[in-house]
């Protein structure tokens, strides 16, 4: 077990030295632009450290499905498309993208991009990377295959710097998919290495180059001076992990790290009150909801389900339980997503209406039990307790909470058999593609992976949407969202916020897609 001798210098010593350099440099830099890409002389030393809950599970960008791994990957590997901080699709390694015909899209690949080993990026590399994900015989069974749903293959266009990607069917979300997934790797580099080596080394086109990877402990990267855009302002980037939220917050307050993920609401004040750090929050792509099985009493009654929505004071849950770090929802599609219906409001708090609807449904006196995971989502148990508490206050329904192990609960949700699921449960779903259609298909259509709901009309409309062009599809999904509000298959809860702690020495803002992009970090 060899370890880099650099690590023998105490991190604090290093930070002190770096802080000194940073202070000098920032005087020169503060008149420039605020995006750190003005092409000015970059300060030599600006080290940034990011602490997540988990370490990456490996460094193969196509062999994982977790956000913490993704956050590390995006600094070394890039895709053809990407998203800006607002979630809009932008070009990355592609200079142009267009739909050639139904089921066929074309990316023009940027010139003058080099991999970290110095070789030029070619369209063949891009095509290979896509095929490595979607075709098993090219690489392996990539867990990302479903993230490029519908894509069947890619090939470099003859004699041009372009790649043609084929899908089965129209695939209306293909650009959204490529904006979120499919990091580009170099074909020859991958083919020369064993699976194990690919998991421990990196060779992308991104703004940071891998220096040192200690499995389970840290990933150290340094600025790619030959990056195709301006080099990053951050000179060295370190990723570490701490499972315990309080450990992360203490590291931040003690200036041992610069960004920590998932600051729990009870720790927010401690961060806000400190001179060293602040809170940075952003609405995430995750929606938290209470599903109700449409096939069992009392939830089979639409009135009863609506009553449950009227029964809870969602506004109070968001402000009191979540400390304001959340947004109320009234439909399965979040604001900013494709298909969000702006005319749909959250259900108001109206316990009398709730009691009336319960009477009308014929299920007065019902006793119901909410299954909830603990510690998986921001304040999940507390939200569940509040929901059950409000419902229990109704004169004609009694409700309780059943705390469940997340793994066991998910097992029940995933059997594909609705009868295995609890009648009423809390769960969250994050959709990094910003596409409401994918959310509804997975969670609210009869054959959806995680669905407890079935409605012929919804199924039909979603199937239609699958073969509609963008604008028409958007309208259909909006309409479906309106219907789903009315039919209330869920108790609509909150949009989860990603709550970060950030050191005062850096200038950085949180993004909706949970990506922490060190390229956008500059000195305060």
């Amino acid at each position: 077990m060899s370890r880099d001798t650099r690590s023998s210098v105490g991190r604090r010593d290093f930070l002190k030295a770096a802080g000194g350099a940073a202070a000098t440099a920032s005087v020169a830099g503060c008149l420039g632009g605020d995006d750190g890409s003005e092409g000015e002389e970059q300060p030599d030393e600006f080290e940034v450290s990011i602490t997540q809950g988990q370490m990456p599970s490996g460094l193969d960008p196509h062999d994982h499905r977790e956000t913490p791994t993704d956050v590390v990957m995006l600094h070394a590997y890039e895709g053809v498309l990407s998203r800006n901080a607002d979630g809009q699709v932008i070009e990355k390694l592609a200079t142009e993208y267009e739909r050639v015909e139904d089921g066929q899209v074309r990316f023009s690949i940027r010139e003058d991009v080099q991999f970290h080993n110095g070789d030029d990026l070619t369209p063949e590399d891009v095509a290979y990377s896509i095929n490595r994900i979607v075709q098993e015989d090219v690489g392996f069974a990539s867990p990302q295959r479903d993230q490029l749903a519908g894509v069947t293959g890619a090939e470099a266009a003859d004699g041009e710097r372009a790649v043609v990607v084929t899908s089965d069917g129209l695939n209306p979300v293909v650009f959204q998919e490529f904006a979120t997934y499919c990091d580009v790797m170099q074909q020859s580099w991958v083919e020369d290495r064993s699976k194990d080596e690919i998991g421990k080394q990196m060779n992308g086109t991104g703004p940071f180059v891998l220096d040192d990877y200690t499995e389970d402990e840290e990933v150290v990267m340094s600025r790619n001076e030959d990056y195709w855009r301006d080099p990053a302002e951050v000179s060295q980037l370190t990723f570490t992990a701490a499972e315990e939220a309080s450990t992360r917050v203490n590291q931040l307050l003690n200036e041992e790290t610069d960004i920590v993920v998932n600051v729990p609401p009870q720790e927010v004040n401690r961060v806000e009150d400190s001179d060293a750090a602040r809170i940075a929050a952003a609405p995430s792509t995750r929606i938290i909801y209470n599903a109700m099985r449409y096939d069992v009493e009392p939830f089979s009654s639409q009135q009863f389900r609506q009553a449950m929505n009227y029964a809870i004071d969602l506004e109070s849950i968001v402000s009191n339980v979540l400390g304001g770090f959340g947004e109320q929802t009234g439909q399965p599609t979040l604001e900013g997503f494709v298909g969000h219906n702006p005319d749909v409001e959250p259900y108001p708090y109206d316990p009398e209406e709730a009691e009336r609807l319960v009477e009308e449904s014929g299920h007065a006196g019902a006793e119901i039990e909410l299954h909830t995971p603990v510690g998986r989502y921001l304040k999940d148990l507390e939200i569940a307790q509040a929901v059950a508490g409000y419902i229990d206050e109704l004169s004609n329904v009694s409700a309780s909470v059943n705390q469940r192990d997340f793994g066991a609960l998910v097992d029940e949700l995933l059997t594909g058999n609705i009868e295995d699921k609890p009648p009423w449960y809390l769960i969250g779903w994050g959709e990094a593609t910003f596409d409401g259609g994918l959310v509804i298909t997975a969670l609210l259509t009869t054959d959806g992976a995680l669905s407890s709901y079935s409605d012929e009309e919804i199924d039909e409309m979603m199937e239609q949407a699958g073969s509609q062009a963008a604008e028409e599809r958007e309208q259909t999904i909006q309409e479906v969202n309106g219907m789903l509000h009315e039919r209330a298959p869920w108790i609509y809860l909150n949009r989860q916020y990603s709550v970060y702690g950030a050191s005062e020495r850096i200038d950085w803002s949180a993004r909706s897609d949970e990506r922490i992009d060190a390229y956008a970090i500059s000195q305060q």
Partner: protein
Amino acid sequence: MSLSRFLLKRALQGLFVIWGVVTVVFGLRFISPGDPANVLLPPDVSESTRQQVVAELGLDQPLYVQYLDYIAGLLVGDMGTSLVTKTEASGRIIGKLPATLELAVAATIVAVVIAIPLGVLSATRRHEPADYGATVFSLAGISTPNFWLGIMLIIVFAVQLNLFPTSRRPVGIDDGVAHLVAFQFGLAWNDLSTWLWHVTLPAITLGTYFTALITRLTRSGMLEELGQGYVRAARAKGLPETLVRYKHALRNTLIPIITVVGLQLGTLIGGAVITEAVFNWPGLGTLIINSIQARDWPVVQGSIIVIGVGFVVLNILVDALYAYVNPQVTYD
């Protein structure tokens, strides 16, 4: 019975115990909730991908085949493949051992250094304020939960007073020793001081319960020895009181303490889990917690087996040492 025969006998017994541990650990996986494939894969993967992953992990085999495969693997040091990193589980586990051992030994040193003088003081000043102080201290030590103490120490000594780091372990003691051996004294000093600086708070946290335990043990042991005939005889002969207390009484008190220290070292290795999590110490404990959360069964199982083996080995060593220190005890 000779020492070697004794060791052989205990080793054979130990093997049975380890086999039991392996079997229980293997069985645990099947009564625990959470299918590893479901935690490993996102909810929306296709059934074919799911089945493929299950087959790759060997989870579709009959139970006895999986069990025999597992034992056969263990015999050659193969604990399976980590579901999360897809690397050898044994490599991940062995890599974490030094950090945990360092922490356990440091905690033991903290405990012994504080506890034995405190226990002696408490016994020789019986019913005086010092004795009451030591008793209150050990009571508090035994009843303070580790995680709470750890968090308090971090908040006071790391965050408020800024004297220690909050967590992590950038260098191991092995680096320091390696540099020392290579006559790179500057680097060695750097490493060792960084290590000490990082290990202090976790060692105190982990050692506190243990300190309290040994203090009480020393106190009662000393009181008992001081009442013995040989002590009275030594005093009657006119030996200085310090010699009576430390050379004679303490020495005999230490015999049971050695046993407890040895056995507790095993407990510390296993019990470091919470302390390691609080201090983000990159040892077996942190690995176990992360792996449980990720349902990374091969790593969880392997770690528990390593801890089990550690216990068995320590037990044997303690027994042997016990008999060595106390000639009245025979190997049987």
